[in-house]
């Protein structure tokens, strides 16, 4: 099944797009979808993952709700679910 990622700020700049779809197994979890995203887009992983976890307070959102501890989140996904990675906006 497919799930759809929305990317914001620096992550969108790195990916060159704000929306990406990835294919995941039917029993995939949020954590699996993050792994799939980073497998397909290693430059995103280089920026967004440190020591096996999302870096720099990047938030993961599943169907509009922030996911706590996303790298281990075992909540199941459904076909066409929307996920997002939202880094804090820095500068001023």
């Amino acid at each position: 099944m497919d799930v759809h990622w929305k990317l914001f700020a620096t992550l969108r700049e790195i990916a060159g797009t704000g929306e990406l779809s990835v294919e995941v197994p039917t029993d995939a979890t949020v954590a699996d979808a993050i792994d799939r995203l980073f497998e397909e887009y290693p430059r995103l992983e280089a920026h967004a993952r440190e020591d096996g976890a999302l870096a720099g307070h990047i938030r993961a959102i599943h169907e509009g709700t922030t996911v706590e501890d996303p790298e281990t989140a075992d909540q199941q996904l459904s076909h066409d679910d929307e996920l997002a990675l939202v880094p804090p906006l820095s500068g001023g």
Partner: protein
Amino acid sequence: MHVDIVPVGDLPAAVKREASAGLRSVFDCDVSVHDAQSVPPGAYDPDRDQYRAEEFIDLAKRVGVGEKNVAVTNKDLFYRRRNYVFGLAYLDGSGSVISTHRLQTSSDGGFSNKPASEVFAERVRKEIVHEIGHTLGLEHCDNKRCVMSFSPTVREVDVKEQTLCGSCQRRVL
């Protein structure tokens, strides 16, 4: 909307006043000023002699009583690989932070014919409006006059206005 300003460290009254005035002038919001808080333990990075901005946001979210809670500090903040930041905010989130440390007129190539105190006050107002704008869902704006334009140095802060451009206004007001 209620915005709670959370002073962190020893912050002059004038800064709190300007921060409140900036928010009230742009957003139709109630503003309160929280009791001053100590710098969060663990925020200081001795190698950089700077403070992690994320820790200040966490503090503002923890103690703030507003729908939006913004930490204001005079400590020098950084975020990941950036040398420094004037502010940091969560898009569509409740927490944000601004630092006045590098908004002082002597730093980093700003320009203005106005008195130093007025230039500093304007920068404080712009930066706090900017960060609350992020928490309302606004990203950086390409219009250099818009308060939501990206400001890596005070030069860009001085170029922008204290207000949202028409397009950003339509998205949040």
